[in-house]
């Protein structure tokens, strides 16, 4: 059987790469190949950049409200194709279909937020900064931007950036993850129907060669990246060398702490979702569960029972609470961490290593896994596992939790469950991560607030979406005027 080949979208047309290197795309629930993708080349990137440069001037001179109208049309088209996008996403990524629907919703919310351009892109003016002299700050688009995005949110993450870049008058290139290229291809089929001017929005599939070509190309003004910390650091450094704007969002080791006065029954659903949503493959997954004081035994027992009760299977089944991980290679990597945890002396109280789903014997499944009595210096408490593995680090006091959070290096997100306003304030005031949940698990900021961490979790100054992102995609030109 011939598998479908994912094509590039350049200058308003579907084009095949000149590359002969093909990668396989898998259905992780079935362990079956479902498509192929060409690993693009420098030449593919150059074509896309030239198209985007060519389109820039006409697009940047298009009134912002007219640009927003393209996004309104796009939103409607995404709503119409919502379920199809969500199901494509689940098929190639593995997450539950409700999670995929949530992802598509978040994608659309970014479009909705970006359409506020006529307010959010406004500059500012001050008369009489000196005698008869006025000063104006204009927000102007910069040029061509690109996004390099990960496999865990193949639908949403490019749209943390793309709508804002477009609506402010820039042109754009998306490089989807080579592991999950089908979702963005489906999305671009819809984009193609909207009738954007040719070259305004482009997509190049590929792997390292495409990434490096984007980083090196002098025609690209800025890069938005989401992925692991080592790659984020690399992207940040390379963009510094080539003089590009950059926002590089990296990995995480998020801590969820539970105080003795927390309402455990009410907290359990969001606790479980925080740790096992997307099979733990989120930069906003809980990684360390930190019970404080005497709550530990009861919490661990109830958490383990709830984890064990989760239904695991094909994400397209509405009953499924956790799907497979994205690939066999990733499954092995996570298994390696479980072995490491055992070797380090942590107590394995729920073992997901040999988990099988009867209807899908070839799927890349792992069961929920919990280590208790983990020490803060163990690898499973320091390194990003990106799988359904929870490390329980028992703490004596809130101070111990804050110390634990602030010594991970990563500083993406953290959460505290408590009935005490004072404890909550202390926690959110003192911890380093930039995204904090109180009694809600590790929750993602919505499109109108910024997304991104601190420390080793974020490189750059301006985070994803929120109001700030309008600064990333614009230059403030200051005009000082005096008329004689």
């Amino acid at each position, binding site marked *: 059987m011939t598998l479908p080949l994912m094509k590039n979208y350049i200058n308003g047309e579907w084009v095949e790469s000149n590359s002969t290197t093909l990668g396989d795309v898998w259905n992780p629930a079935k362990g079956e190949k479902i498509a192929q993708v060409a690993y693009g080349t420098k030449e593919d990137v150059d074509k896309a950049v030239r198209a985007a440069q060519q389109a820039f001037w006409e697009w940047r001179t298009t009134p912002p409200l007219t640009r927003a109208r393209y996004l309104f049309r796009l939103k409607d088209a995404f709503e119409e194709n919502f379920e199809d996008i969500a199901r494509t996403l689940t098929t190639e990524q593995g997450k539950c279909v*409700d999670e995929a*629907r949530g992802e598509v919703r978040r994608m659309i919310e970014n479009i909705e937020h970006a359409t506020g351009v006529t307010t959010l892109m406004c500059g500012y003016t001050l008369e009489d900064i000196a005698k008869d002299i006025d000063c104006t700050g204009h927000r102007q688009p910069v040029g061509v931007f690109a996004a390099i995005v990960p496999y865990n949110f193949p639908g949403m993450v490019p749209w943390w950036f793309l709508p804002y870049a477009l609506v402010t008058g820039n042109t754009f290139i998306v490089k989807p993850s080579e592991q999950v290229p089908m979702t963005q291809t489906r999305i671009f089929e819809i984009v193609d129907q909207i009738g954007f001017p040719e070259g305004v929005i482009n997509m190049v599939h590929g792997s390292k060669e495409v990434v490096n070509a984007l980083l090196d190309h002098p025609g690209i003004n800025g890069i938005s990246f989401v992925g692991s910390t080592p790659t984020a650091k690399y992207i940040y450094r390379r963009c510094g060398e080539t003089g590009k704007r950059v926002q590089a969002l990296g990995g995480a080791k998020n801590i969820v702490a539970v105080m003795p006065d927390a309402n455990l029954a*009410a907290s359990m*659903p*969001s606790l479980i979702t925080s740790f096992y*949503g997307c099979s733990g493959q989120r930069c906003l997954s809980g990684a360390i569960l930190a019970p404080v004081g005497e709550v530990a035994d009861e919490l661990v027992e109830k958490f383990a029972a709830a984890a064990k009760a989760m239904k695991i299977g094909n994400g397209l089944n*509405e009953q499924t609470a956790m799907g497979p991980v994205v690939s066999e290679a990733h499954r092995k990597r996570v298994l390696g961490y479980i072995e490491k945890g055992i070797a380090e002396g942590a107590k394995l109280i729920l073992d997901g290593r040999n988990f099988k789903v009867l209807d899908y014997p070839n799927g890349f499944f792992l069961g929920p896994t919990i280590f208790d009595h983990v020490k803060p210096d163990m690898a499973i408490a320091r390194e990003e596992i990106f799988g359904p593995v929870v490390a329980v680090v028992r703490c004596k006091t809130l101070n111990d939790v804050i110390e634990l959070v602030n010594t991970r290096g990563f500083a993406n997100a953290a959460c505290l469950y408590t009935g005490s306003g004072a404890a909550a304030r202390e926690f959110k005031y003192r911890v380093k991560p930039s995204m904090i949940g109180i009694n809600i698990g590790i929750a993602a900021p919505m499109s109108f607030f910024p997304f991104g961490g601190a420390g080793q979790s974020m490189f750059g100054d301006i985070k994803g979406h929120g109001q700030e992102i309008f600064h990333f995609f614009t230059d403030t030109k200051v005009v000082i005027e005096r008329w004689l």
Partner: protein
Amino acid sequence: MPLENFGSILNFAEEIESQDQAFYEVAANNPACAAFRQLFSELAAEAGKNVKAIQRTRRENVTEMILEPIRDFVRAPFCEACEGAGVLGAAEVLETARRLEARAQRYYTEAAEKISALPEVSRSLKGFGKIRKARQAKLAGLEA
């Protein structure tokens, strides 16, 4: 089969509406039901509109975080057979229609209660329940 998450509750609602739409479309073309053709056609069209409204509710209210568990809610009590809309007599078709409407109203009422942690979804389901109550009233006075 359990209905213990957002997707399964909305999907089952969609199934109910689609099943009812198909039933009324066939019934409207049943010669024995000629007297009720317009009503059945309207009920089918309304069910079609409800499918779209349910899909919209699902699209716009899905959340990534489960904050409240949904427990003890299953499909079985709401499953109804409705074959024969094209061949049964008018009395049997009307009887089946009443059964389907009562089933749907019951489902929407209970589902709205179960999913009360998502008020917009709950409100929407209550709305579908009201529609079904009104449809029951329309069918109540009819005789074959």
